[in-house]
Structures are given as C-alpha cells and as structure tokens.
C-alpha cells in the first residue's frame, strides 16, 4: 500500500546561520539526508544541537541560508512567503510541545482550522474531515469540549488531529510529549505508531528522550548542527506493549483502545 521508495524530503548541504550582533551562530552546518514516504524518524541531540531549527526548515516555517531542500518535488528555497504558507497548509502538519489549541474554541473547531485557510473545502467537507481526524485520535465523544475541559494528553491528541486533517505528506512534531508524563507520552506514541503503521503517515519527531526514540524506525542524531549519527532502528518498541507492561497500579486506565 505504501510506496517506500518515493522520496518526500531531500536535503543537501543544508545550512542555517543566525547573526547575533557581530557573531554568526551556525545552527545547522552541512546537513544532508532524505526521507521516504511512510518513514517514522526521530531527531535526537542535546540542547542547542539544532533540532528545532531543522524541524522549522522541514516545516517551511524557516528558510535555510544555504543548501537545497526538496519537499514532495518542490524546491522550497525559491518560494515566497505566501507559497510557503500554502505548502504548510496543504502538505504539512505540525504538533507542538505546548499543544497550541485556540482557547475557548471546541475541539472540532480547532481541528477544522487548517481547512478554513483552504478555499477548496465546503463547510460540510470541513466538518466531515474534522470528524474523521477526531475519530483517528479516538476523541469523537469530546468533539464539543473546550481545551480547558480536556487533559494534557487529550489536548495533544486534538492537536494531532488538527495536524492530520489536511492529509499532509508529513507530520512534524517538536517534543510533542515534552509536557506529558510517561504513561500519557506512551499513549501519544501509540497513536503516532498507529498513524504511521496503519495509515502510512510519514512522521518526523524531535525528542531528546531515548525511550521515545525507541518507538521510531530511524533516528537522526545531531550535534552542533551536524549529523552525528543516522541509523535504522532494528529493535523498534511497540508502544502498546510497553503500556501493557507498565505497572497497573500507576495506570489510571482511561486509555483509548
């Protein structure tokens, strides 16, 4: 079902420099790799190694100061701001550490939001797609809940649904489990694994926790803006199994199945 050979991301000699006063900070220095459809990649590295900078460039929020970035056949470095916005709207999905849901706005309306910026969808199509995305994160019964009526894990699932709703070619997550306890983190990872395995979603997930990285199929490790290691994970952990083995005493057990 998934064509593993189709390249979604191709990065060559990527550079990102920041000028701070007279000094030049090299956040990314000569980074090259490619991502195929259906991959689940984690990006690791110590603080300040350039993970977020890389993810921002992958997500078309930021432009490299050197090198090439080909996203789904499009040469990104030549695009205008408006064209970048369109790419983000139609080809990418973001999940943030702090969820970033609109306050006082129901789960379903939060999920619909990306589709509002695309004239192609009618109100009915928006609602249908948002409902499907909500079902994918197993929160159908919470569709009208406001963010402050949801737990952190549930809010993050709404955020994941929002990232899914536009059928992106790639979902980008920056420390998406950073604010959650380990049980809830594993639940989120279980969801991510499902999206990757069952729906073939391509996922790039920034983390600095090795146990989170263990759920992915490939890990790229950065140090000082360079790729230190890029390896295929031979022993991918299954989040569902890990959750089962967690001590039942600490399990509040409201996990979605």
């Amino acid at each position, binding site marked *: 079902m998934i064509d593993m050979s189709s390249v979604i991301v191709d990065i060559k000699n990527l550079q990102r420099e920041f000028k701070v006063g007279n000094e030049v900070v090299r956040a990314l220095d000569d980074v090259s790799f490619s991502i195929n459809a259906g991959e689940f990649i984690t990006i690791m590295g110590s603080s300040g190694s350039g993970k977020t900078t890389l993810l921002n460039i992958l997500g078309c*929020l*930021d432009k490299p100061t050197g090198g090439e970035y080909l996203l789904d056949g499009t040469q990104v470095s030549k695009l205008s701001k408006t064209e970048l916005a369109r790419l*983000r709207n139609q080809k990418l999905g973001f999940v943030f550490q702090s969820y*970033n849901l*609109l306050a006082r706005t129901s789960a379903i309306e939060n999920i619909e939001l990306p589709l509002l*910026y*695309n*004239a192609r969808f009618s109100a009915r199509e928006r609602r249908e797609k948002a409902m499907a995305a909500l079902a994918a994160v197993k929160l159908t019964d919470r569709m009208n809940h406001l963010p402050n009526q949801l737990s952190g894990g549930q809010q993050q699932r709404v955020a994941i649904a929002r990232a899914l709703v536009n059928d992106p070619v790639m979902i980008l997550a920056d420390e998406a489990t950073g604010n959650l306890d380990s049980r809830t983190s594993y639940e989120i990872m279980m969801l991510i694994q499902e999206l990757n395995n069952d729906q073939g979603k391509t996922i790039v997930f920034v983390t600095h926790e090795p146990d989170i990285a263990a759920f992915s199929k490939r890990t790229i490790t950065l140090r000082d803006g360079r790729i230190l290691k890029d390896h295929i994970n031979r022993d991918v952990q299954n989040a569902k199994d890990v959750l089962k083995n967690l001590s039942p005493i600490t399990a509040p057990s409201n996990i979605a199945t």
Partner: protein
Amino acid sequence: MKMANLLRIAWRAINRNRMRTFLTMLGIIIGVAAVIAMTAIGQGSKQSIQKQISGMGSNMITIRPNSNVTGGVRMDNTSVQSLTEQDITALQKQPEYIDAISPSVTSRGQVINGPYNWATSMQGVFPEYLAIRGWPLLDGVSFTSQDIKSAAKVCLLGQTVLNNLFPNGEDALGKIIRFKNIPFKIIGVLSKKGENTFGQDQDDVILAPVNTVQKRVLATTYYQNIFVSAIDENATDKAAAEIQQVLRTSHRLAKGTDNDFTVRTQAELINTFSATSQILTILLTVIAGISLLVGGIGIMNIMYVSVTERTKEIGLRMSIGARGIDILLQFLIEAILISITGGVLGAGLGIVATRLVTFFIHWPTLVTEYSVIISFLVCFITGVFFGYYPALKASRLDPIEALHYE
C-alpha cells in the same frame, strides 16, 4: 481564501471575548448615538423654524425700500419714498414668474367700537394680499378692486382686534368702527393666523383697501412694502430676479448703482434663521464626531493589545497555512465587525434617546436618513483606519517567533 471563511474566523475570535468586545464597542456606541441624537435635535429645530416661516406664505416675496442717505439725513424706511404705484403697474406688466402682487402701507392707531377700544395697526393692501399670505376669510367677503379705486371705507378684522372690539361675541359684519376717527364698515373677518417666528401676534391687524389707508389715514402716495407671490415655490428665485430687473428699470437706476429697494424671498428668510440652528447642528456634530474618534482610538488600542496577547495564536495560524494577508484581513474584519456592530447598537440607542427627548422635554427632533448613513460610513472607516495598523503588525509577525512568544 474565501471571504466567508475569514468572516467566520473573525466572528469566532470576537465571540471568544464578548465582554471585552462589548467594552471596546462602547465608545463607538456612545459616539454614534450622540451623532444621531445631536443631529436629530438640530434638524428638528431647523425644521420647526422652516415650518413657521413657510406658514407665512411659502412662495411670498417681500420688497421694501432701502433706508438710504439723502442729503445727509438718514431716513427710516417708513419715510423712504421709493415704492410707488408705478412700480406696481410695471410689475403687473411682466408677470412671467409672478402670480399676485399687493402693496402695503401700515398705520398704527386707536380703533373704537362704542365703549370698546383697542390700539392696533391698519394695513392697506390689495385683495390679492390674502392669497399671497395664504390667509382665508372666516366670515364675510373681501374688498374688491372697485373698493380700492374708490378708496372705500371698508375693512377686514383680524381675530385679536375682533375679540377686543366685540368681547361678547356679537356679529361684527356690517358694523361700523372708527380708526383714527374715520368710520370703517366691517365686511369680513380673517381666520386665525397665530404668532409669527418673532412672536408677534399676526391677528392684531385690520386690513383695508390700500388707497383708503394712503389717502384717508396717512395722506401719502408711497408704499412701505410690496408683497408678491411667485407662481410656485421653485420659481421664487426667478421671480425675485425678475422683480429686481423691473424695479431697476422703473426707478431708472443707472448701471453700477445700488438698488434703492430690497427683495427678500421666504427661502432667504428661512436660510437666515436656519443658519443659527445650522451652527448648532455643526457644533453638536463636531462634539459627537470627537466622541466617535475617541471610540475609534479605543478600538485601535484594544486591537493592539489583542494582537500582542494573541501572538501565539497568530503564530499557530501561520504555521497551519494562514498567509500574511489572511491574518491582516482577520484583524481588520474583527475591527470592522466591532465598529459596525457598535454602529448598529449606537444608532438604536440614538433613536431611542431622540424619542425620549421629544417625549419628556418636547423638543422637536428629526432623525434623518443621512445622519444614520453617515454614522455607518464613519464606523466602517473608523474600523478600517484604526484596525489597519494593528492588523498590519499582526500580519508581519514571524511565525517562529510568534509561536514561541510567551
């Protein structure tokens, strides 16, 4: 990006903070209500003045001699002797825009009916005077042009004179009264006219044939005024021009010299009197306009606060594909929605306030369409103008910085 979606986004955003939205609107609400109420009061008083003046005969034109300086002696205009029978004849010859003409001379004096007497004025006119003034008889008949020629001693009584000479309500028709000791036969009674704009009692008058008053009462051959009615209200200016021309010829005035008479239309009179209420209207509107401006600055202030407060939201919207223009339009539409909604509420409040003013203190008021339309336009412009800079600021945010804003 569909406009409907932008409207939906903006509507949801202002709905998320209803209390603040309402407080922001308050300035606009009060401003618009003030504009509408103030202009309604101004327009109302202007209209009531107009009504009173046109009650004097709406297409009436008044000609009076100019008080000019003769031989170093400034004469008052009753003794100025520039309007004569010749002028009447000249005007009658060229009645293109002129409907009716009547000269007028007035004499003040005591009028006596047996034991009753009353100080009043007798006005000598043509029978056409009644038509010019729009003043029907209540009883009896008017005098005729034959009465004019023969300087007949007949008269028409105004209501006030009638009430003072016949306090017991006897029939006055056919009775003889004495004005400055000259006997006059009452042949008609005028209907009630009421007070004029200056508060004078217009019914305190006796009308008689002009020749009678000239020859028998005043012993003069001049007229103090000439009243003319134009063929219709729209022709008054043309009629006035016609009169000027005819009188200049008739008075043999050389080119470049001043008129020795003045022609005044009702419209000019109305303008003179509306000018005061116009100034009032302008003043009130300026005050109201300032409150709108303050309301607009309130919107701008809140929009700036809102942009700063919602920086993270803006970053998120950008990350999911909102373009700069989408963010700009969203905030602009929010500002416009706030100001327009404020405008609607303000218009309602203004109209209610106007009604209350009329109801409780009986001031005449008139809510004009244009004040409502202008208020809406001003609201829209206020929204665009004061919403633009905050919106522009929002649209220029960098998505990454905005997302990480705390």
